[in-house]
């Protein structure tokens, strides 16, 4: 099914390999749970392997926490909350968080390499985006800790207590930072569970937290699978659940919490529209499309996975997009030239390939550039589907991979309707040169983050989160504080 792009001579883009060295990182053979300021063995004695998705080599063994371990962690967090953290002045809490930010910055390169090894994302991304953003997130929220009374006028603010946090595998360190930093700034203590395929950077963060001298029990990291997460959700002494992940699991969590008074925020899936008008700067827009869907192999909840191009420029945009895709480098994530790294896990690769099959069956026209797919590891070439129907499954369901569906439109009204015709509402992109049109669209698109003439930008000061089935609550910015306050 792979088609070569027609007529255009593709120049050679071969670069010499430029591998990031792994010599300065040391991985332990075995990682335990971080509870109450100590590394403890899991109650069950069980460990599971974490592998490098780029070459399927095992990196380390990770402790498999169960309900007993979670209970231990929650008790430690409760004790730390009651005895230390809730009593500490905000200005002192701030200094711990600043210290964590600084220690992270010092070890940024180590974080970036380990993140790339464990998750399959490119070193360029983990080095330039994930790790700096994570550090900055701590730095940003540190400053809030002693200024909370300015955030919500005329409201008596109060911390919640113990926060249970469950994070996904697509931005392992960054999601840990998004969860931990605001919770600490607002005076809560934490039990966090990383995703089972990507525990390593959260555990390195635990090392840093330990090194920072943060009082024992304030942050606890319990690694494991879905049942470990369920034990956190169902623990009676947890006051708040913050979850980032799929809409399916999010709904299960919302249901499990129905009979309780636990506060909950959910950051769930998306199927975000990226809309290109005929007056948009086409070359920039094409870069935006590529960044929107192929950034982080498409493992992005806000990925611009539904492309809407105005009919009169559709042919040109698709042609340019194909040309651009020809130049994308797929391969070893540690190579600094690589644009598209490895799919996070075998399981996820199977899911993506399933959707690609569905797309072909549904009759859409598929395009994939020729890629040198490494013999080992999990990889998926960047994929386009053209002439996709609104009713098509690949235009409706979140694929969480480098798969883009393309539809066309004629009028503004039509594209607003098509873009909003989804149960999700996380993000959207709009490309046009006309300011008034941008504001018309940005107010009518039912989504929490709108990128106009840009895409997939993130910042600690910028609130992030969705409408409708993309969840509720915001992370980042002033508004991100309210998720952790009464």
């Amino acid at each position, binding site marked *: 099914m792979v088609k070569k792009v027609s007529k255009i001579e593709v120049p050679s883009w071969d670069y010499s390999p430029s591998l990031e060295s792994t010599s300065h990182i040391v991985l332990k053979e075995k990682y335990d749970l971080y509870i109450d300021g100590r590394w403890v063995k899991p109650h069950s004695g069980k460990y599971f392997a974490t592998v490098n998705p780029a070459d399927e080599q095992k990196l380390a063994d990770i402790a498999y926490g169960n309900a007993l371990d979670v209970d231990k962690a929650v008790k430690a967090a409760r004790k730390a909350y009651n005895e230390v953290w809730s009593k500490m002045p905000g200005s002192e809490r701030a200094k711990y968080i600043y210290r964590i930010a600084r220690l992270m910055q010092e070890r940024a390169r180590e974080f970036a390499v380990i993140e790339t090894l464990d998750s399959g994302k490119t070193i360029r991304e983990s080095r330039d985006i994930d790790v700096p953003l994570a550090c900055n997130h701590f730095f940003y929220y540190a400053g809030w800790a002693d200024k909370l009374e300015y955030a919500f006028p005329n409201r008596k603010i109060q911390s919640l207590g113990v926060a249970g946090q469950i994070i996904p595998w697509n931005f392992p360190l960054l999601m840990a930072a998004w969860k931990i930093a605001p919770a600490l700034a607002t005076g809560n203590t934490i039990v966090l569970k990383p995703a089972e395929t990507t525990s390593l950077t959260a555990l390195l963060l635990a090392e840093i937290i330990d090194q920072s001298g943060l009082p024992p029990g304030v942050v606890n990291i319990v690694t494991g699978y879905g049942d470990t997460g369920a034990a956190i959700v169902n623990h009676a002494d947890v006051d708040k659940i913050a979850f980032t992940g799929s809409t399916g699991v999010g*709904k299960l969590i919302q249901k499990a919490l129905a009979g309780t008074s636990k506060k909950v925020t959910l950051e769930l899936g998306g199927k975000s529209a990226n809309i290109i008008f005929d007056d948009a700067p086409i070359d920039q827009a094409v870069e935006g499309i590529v960044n929107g869907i192929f950034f982080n192999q498409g493992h992005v909840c806000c990925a611009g996975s539904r492309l809407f191009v105005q009919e009169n420029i559709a042919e040109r945009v698709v042609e340019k997009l194909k040309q651009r895709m020809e130049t994308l480098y797929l391969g070893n994530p540690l190579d600094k030239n690589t644009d598209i790294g490895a799919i996070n896990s075998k399981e996820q690769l199977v899911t993506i390939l399933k959707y690609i099959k569905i797309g072909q069956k549904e009759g859409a026209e598929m395009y994939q550039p020729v890629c040198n797919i490494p013999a080992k590891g999990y990889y998926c070439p960047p994929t386009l589907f053209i002439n996709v129907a609104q009713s098509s499954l690949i235009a409706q369901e979140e694929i969480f991979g480098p798969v883009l569906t393309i539809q066309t439109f004629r009028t503004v009204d039509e594209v607003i309707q098509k873009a909003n015709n989804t149960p999700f509402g996380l993000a959207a992109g709009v490309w046009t040169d006309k300011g008034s049109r941008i504001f018309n669209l940005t107010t009518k698109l039912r*989504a929490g983050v709108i990128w106009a003439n840009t895409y997939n930008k993130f910042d600690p000061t910028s609130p992030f989160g969705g409408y*409708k089935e993309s969840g509720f609550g915001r992370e980042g*910015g002033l508004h991100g504080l309210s998720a952790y306050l009464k």
Partner: protein
Amino acid sequence: MTRLEILKTYKLFIGGQFPRTESGRYYTLKNIKGSTIANICLSSRKDVRNAVQAARKAFGGWSERTAFNRGQILYRIAEMLEGRRDQFIAELQLQGIVKSKAEKEVEIAIDRIVYYAGWCDKYNQVLSSVNPVSSSHFNFSVNEPTGVVGVFAPQNTSLIGLVSLVIPVISGGNSCVILASEVLPLCAITFAEVLHSSDLPGGVVNILTGKNKELADTFSSHMDINAIVYGGDDSTSLKMIKENATSNVKRVVVQQKDWMKPDSQDLYMISDTQELKTTWHPIENIGGSSSSY
């Protein structure tokens, strides 16, 4: 010869009209002495669906009204309620509430509407932000209404509970479907008459009467309701509502306060049914960026 009084038929309020329940069912409201006050519509699941449809239809137009205009219309609601002050006091008394308390309840309700009318063009100023991102982008966050909101009015009041929950919802540009108090339903329908004469577009507020137990399931599992504001006190029902809410990730807001108290109103009751939208746009950064103009 004494004149025979005309009794009011209490109907539903859907899409700006006053239909009877499509089911043709009713329940009888009695006073303490056991004599009949009125037959009240026993709404069906189909009535809920019709009301949600009307609310969805009205949502776009209402949410796009200017904030100033919404404030004007809310203020008009207060004017209309003031004009019918005596009628509401009498109706509260009819439902067994003593006169002094009834007077107070109506007065607080009127003042509360004025309070939220004033917020319409202010809450977004207080709750929004411009976010100083580290790249060359202009980035700001504003509030937008969640959509169609299902409101379970408190059981223990006829007017003030309903007003306290509904007014912040519509002041923020949402439309809603209300299930009135089952035991004290009269003022809900009379309040619909107030709304009807207040320039509030039909369908922005829809009011049903009936049994919580029968309708809570339909309300909470309806895929086109975006949020539930629950003012009741039945924890079993609330649990079911929260479980059903997962079908489309509804936001469930529980509001249990003494609505007669002055501090039971605030800005955050508006933000409870708002979504935050963040917009990014690049800032051109060519030339002059380091010059001091």
